[in-house]
């Protein structure tokens, strides 16, 4: 707009020069954005579409692929109990998402009190999120150790007869949830802290004048005020949780008896241990569709509880 009006005032040669400049700007613009688009085509769209075809075959490396229609999908949904079991495990593990969000909000509310030393605590909560999953998995395996682990020793001190955690079919997943919440708090805390700082203080002042107590203020001002960030954390953590797998591979190896094999872990096993690439491609597509559905459902429901001002 601005360019047009100022160009109109200018004389003819200036106008022509402007057009030439615009041409060159256009060319450079397309050139500058070309690499990411090449990347998307080569490393995303092509393999994605290729795998859609592969999912309709019994493809393995070293042998020709035969077209078998929807057999892989039928097998996954009707004949392979491990698909459902690992899906269930994945949703069970995702219980860590709401637990982590509640813990993070609670910690953020404490840190928002502007106490001295809060930066130190913030740093402590944040630390695991930047650390290598391999190193953290190693120490947690040691902490969860049934006989000599630190956790069971301290639980014993306070009189709790603790389970064998990672090697107990019932307790391996709760252990993974604990580890996940511990490791994932930091990001949500920082996002919540930023959100809490953005709730207008005038709202709290008005509520105080009206005689609202702390809890009422929290429920009627804070919670709606931070709901966009709550929604953002929910979506991103959920997407992350549904794809979680390296820490399971490192801490439990998916066991005992598949009790901590997540769907992505299963996908990995099918592809790299059983070398069934066609079937693994079908599982990847099923997973992708499930994740998309969950995102869409969340967006639909978000209209009821997320308040944008």
């Amino acid at each position, binding site marked *: 707009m601005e360019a047009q009006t100022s160009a109109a005032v200018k004389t003819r040669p200036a106008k022509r020069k402007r057009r030439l400049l615009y041409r060159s700007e256009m060319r450079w613009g397309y050139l500058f954005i070309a690499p990411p688009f090449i990347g998307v085509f080569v490393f995303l769209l092509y393999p994605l579409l290729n795998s859609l075809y592969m999912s309709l075959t019994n493809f393995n490396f070293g042998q020709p692929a035969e077209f078998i229609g929807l057999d892989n999908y039928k097998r996954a949904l009707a004949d392979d109990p491990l698909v459902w079991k690992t899906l269930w495990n994945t949703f069970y593990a995702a219980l860590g998402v709401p637990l982590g969000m509640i813990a993070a909000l609670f910690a953020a509310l404490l840190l928002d009190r502007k106490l001295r030393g809060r930066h130190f605590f913030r740093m402590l909560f944040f630390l695991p999120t930047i650390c*290598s999953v391999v190193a953290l998995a190693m120490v947690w395996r040691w902490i969860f150790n049934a006989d000599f682990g630190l956790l069971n020793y301290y639980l014993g001190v306070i009189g709790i007869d603790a389970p064998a955690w990672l090697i107990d079919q019932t307790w391996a997943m709760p252990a993974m949830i604990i580890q996940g919440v511990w490791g994932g708090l930091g990001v949500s805390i920082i996002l919540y802290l930023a959100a809490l700082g953005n709730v207008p203080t005038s709202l709290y002042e008005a509520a105080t004048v009206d005689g609202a107590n702390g809890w009422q203020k929290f429920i009627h001002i804070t919670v709606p005020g931070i709901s966009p960030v709550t929604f953002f954390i929910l979506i991103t953590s959920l997407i992350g949780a549904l794809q979680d797998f390296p820490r399971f591979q490192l801490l439990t190896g998916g066991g005992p008896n598949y009790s901590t094999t997540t769907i992505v872990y299963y996908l990995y096993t099918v592809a790299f241990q059983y070398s069934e690439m066609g079937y693994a491609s079908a599982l990847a597509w099923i997973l992708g569709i499930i994740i998309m559905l969950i995102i869409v459902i969340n967006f639909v429901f978000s209209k009821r509880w997320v308040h944008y001002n």
Partner: protein
Amino acid sequence: MAVIAAGRRKRGAAKRLADLAAYMLLGLGGVIMAVPFLWMLATSLKPDGELYSYPPEWIGSRLAWENYRIIFEEAHLIRGFFNTMIVVVPTLIIGLFVCAMSAYAFAKLRFPGRDKLFMLLIGTMVVPGAVMMIPAFIMFKTFGWTDSWKPLIIPGMFGAPMVIFFLRQFIKTLPDELEDAAKIDGMSPPGIFLRIIVPLSKPALITQGILSFNAGYNDYLGPLIYLNSPERYTLQLELASFSSYYGTEWTLVMAGAVVALIPTLVLFAFAQRFFIEGIALTGIKA
């Protein structure tokens, strides 16, 4: 007057009490956060025979620094570290440059379809990474790129939509005046990009660079899928294979974990601000 003063004093006491409770809760949370790190360090310095002492001892009879010497002898940590650098650094430099370039184009240059193309690029972020694992592997295998660093290095050089998104956001806030002045002087977009945009975007570039570096340094899944030969293992993969091999020799395994965390902790100590700003930025965009 007296009533107000008493009320204020009462409120002051209530606030102090609440602050005290908050400190206690934060302290408890802080201990839970810190214990795994401290226990890692404590275990790594225990003499061999004292590992399974019960009740667990935080500090053994002496500090067994030899554990660190042993793991440098038993695991190829230095080789792993250099392999990681080979994988991470070129991708980081070229990838960041490419991202900045396209972010500049999306933020400042005018060309038809610019914003639609931007939305298209951002839209590709909805494809979950785990879904791409198998398709990408199949493709790289047919390229003959498996058991090499290529699948870990090359895709990143084409830029990442997420990074482009944040850099564009930053570049948009830069004032147009300098650019306009440069244009009048006859500077073309590449010149403006290199001489004006890049220097002004330094804080954003450093933030994204640090986050990408740390993510690359910590990456485990990529190397796990693509690398087979131990001499190409990155540090994280080397560490994981070492720990599965030495399973219950916890003193050595923990020493390995400490070594692997040191670069991250050093980076964090110097650049904490960038890490936290980088994260907070994602939230504001929400």
